């Protein structure tokens, strides 16, 4: 009796179950493959100060075939984390993980916030194996925007035109926590008309450092002054980077110095969305000043 039941079970599976490797079991034609559901973590700075970067990110992701959703969000918790407030950090991490739990990927136009989610969330719950497991799974789904396009989606070119001489600042967290260096340069190379002129020490900190910029304003100023002098020395007309914190710091300093350098998030250029005024410029001063 038992043996019959076993055979019935064995025979109930299609023959392919036994001859095909597991990953080929369900073959879905490419055109009907569901779009990856990408939760955009806009970051608090983009949400509050520069929504155009968020819309540029949406465009880049949709052009690359993603379904973009924007769950209700506040902050990844990094300011609390770096201020030593573990309790608040954990609360915010749990809030983010809950808000984005239905997403295949979580993508942010920032190496800093992505570094927080991808590298530091798991550290927060080492004493709670169940949440640690959730955090690990969540962290594996988090990506910085530009490297997500190139490394995960395989994007090699973008359809944008920007006939300017630009220089690119490597923001620290993206560079050193996520190895983002070649990816933005690769995509910028495909922007029509764009010339990339490297500044010296493009991988050196701009002096932002979150609350550091306010707590140690003198030090931060000394570091950003060194940075803007390298930007100016490069001779580029436009300064790009992948993190709004660094960009606001450098743009704020260049504006105070009275320098006419256009400062933008790299996503704006890659998405061909440079119609808004650059960072720290008057709204009347639209981009593409030629």
């Amino acid at each position, binding site marked *: 009796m038992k043996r019959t039941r076993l055979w019935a079970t064995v025979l109930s599976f299609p023959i392919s179950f036994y001859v095909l490797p597991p990953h080929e079991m369900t073959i879905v034609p490419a055109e009907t493959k569901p779009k990856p559901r990408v939760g955009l973590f806009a970051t608090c700075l983009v949400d509050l100060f520069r929504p155009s970067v968020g819309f540029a990110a949406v465009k880049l992701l949709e052009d690359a075939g993603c379904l973009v959703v924007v769950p209700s969000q*506040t902050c990844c918790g990094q300011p609390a984390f770096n201020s030593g407030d573990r309790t608040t950090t954990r609360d915010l991490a749990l809030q983010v993980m809950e808000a984005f739990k239905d997403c295949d990927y979580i993508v942010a136009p920032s190496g800093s916030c992505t570094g927080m989610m991808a590298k530091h969330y798991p550290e927060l719950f080492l004493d709670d194996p169940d949440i640690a497991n959730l955090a690990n799974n969540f962290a594996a789904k988090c990506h910085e925007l530009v490297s997500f396009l190139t490394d995960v989606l395989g994007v090699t070119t973008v359809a944008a035109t920007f006939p300017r001489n630009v220089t690119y600042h490597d923001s620290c967290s993206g560079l050193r926590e996520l190895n983002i260096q070649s990816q933005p340069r690769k995509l910028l190379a495909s922007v029509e008309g764009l010339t990339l002129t490297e500044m010296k020490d493009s991988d050196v900190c701009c002096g932002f450092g979150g609350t550091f910029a306010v707590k140690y304003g003198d030090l931060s100023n000394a570091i950003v002054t060194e940075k803007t002098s390298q930007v100016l020395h490069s001779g580029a007309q436009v300064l790009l980077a992948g993190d709004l914190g660094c960009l606001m710091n450098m743009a704020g300093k260049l504006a105070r110095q009275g320098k006419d350098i256009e400062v933008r998030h790299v996503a704006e250029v890659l998405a061909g969305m440079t119609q808004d005024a650059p960072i720290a410029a008057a709204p009347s001063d639209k981009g593409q000043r030629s």
Partner: protein
Amino acid sequence: MSHASTSPQFKANTRKALGDTQLQAALGHVRHRFIDKRAQAAARLPEFEALRDSARDIKDHVLAHLDLYLETYEANVTASGGKVHFARNAQEACDAIVGICQARGAKTVTKGKSMVSEEIGLNAAIEAAGMVPVETDLGEYIIQIRGETPSHIIAPAVHLTKEQVAADFRHTHRHLPAQRDLTAPESLLSEARGILREKFLAADVGITGANMLIAETGSSIIVTNEGNGDLTQILPKVHIVIASIEKIVPTLEDAAQILRVLARSATGQDMTVYTTLSTGPRRADDPDGPEEYHVVLVDNGRSAMLGSEFEEMLRCIRCGACMNHCPVYHAVGGHAYGWVYPGPMGAVLTPSLIGVDEAGHLPNASTFCGRCESVCPVRIPLPKLMRHWREREFERHLSPATIRAGLGLWAFFAKRPVLYRFSTTLGMRLLSIMGRAKGRFHWLPFTSGWTQSRDLPAPQGETFQAQWHRAQKAANAKPSVTS
């Protein structure tokens, strides 16, 4: 007895440093020279990254078995005719050294470069006992005659220009012709060499630090570029090694592994000019060497770091790469940190040794750019350890009240997404209207830390989330199109 600190005045120290034009000129050299040389040295050695891993593993292994290796080391020093003195703190270490010097009736004591001797305030203790300590490393000699402390752990006088040094030499070496030419660095070097040669010959006791202590042989290793360490330890009748307990490595093979990353990380040399081992006093058939050999092993807070979240800091091999690559160090130099150890390693180690109440600024004065960790030869996660200090400060309510209040207010909103969206939508609207004309603010209430030296970009207008949700709502409200 430990060195007094000015770390609580860190902010005032940095302002002074930023306004010091001579210091800024001297720091210009640090900003690139060390960095380029290290990068070239690392690039020349294909296995450099693997060596960093193995250096880290050696140190981790030692820290996990430190008691065992200390005992082995002591046994082997004793077997070779030397004596080990354990010192729990700075006072005990100074007492032990002064005691050894006095027992020999010493008058002049030469010293090789040693950061732990700075940490315990050894020179002051030797002077207080009526003896004359003479620093023999050129950089250390310069700062000794200036009455200063080192501003860098491997280049103690890096904060000075050669013109300042020339002026100091004229002021101190008054027996030399006043009209002599001291413009070339070589002339400064040769003058110091002439002065120091006499001191070496006159010294009764020679004190060196140790880059490593080797458990299996009871040897100590120093690496130098001037050879002053050799003259310090060979010529006098007594050689005292002073080292902190975490300098132990198990074997000569392990020491060789660490040497391969040490100089490359520090100065970009494959090896320093001199690598000197010393094992016990002179044996019967040795051509030279001291009659007595002592090792003073200093704890001074380190054993309390074992097993704590700061244990990884004890891997440090004192190469200085972290400060060489630190934007904060580049901006203000080492003295601003206010105690013996500057830069990122100091920002972690100093609170461990003198207390976070005293040195609380140091782990906070970092952008967490992570460049220090990326070059550390033993892969110490310096930003993470600085963050642990911030956590301790936060727990103990040591962080400034204004920062805590600001953070608390922000956290209140950040934990309530609906309230957050409502208030930020209004707030950003208001700010964007205020900043519309210029797109930036020259000044705003509560932002002076930012706006004293740079403008604050104004928000574009409505928040991203508000715009996004409005657009989604509009799209959903549209009647579905049927053909």
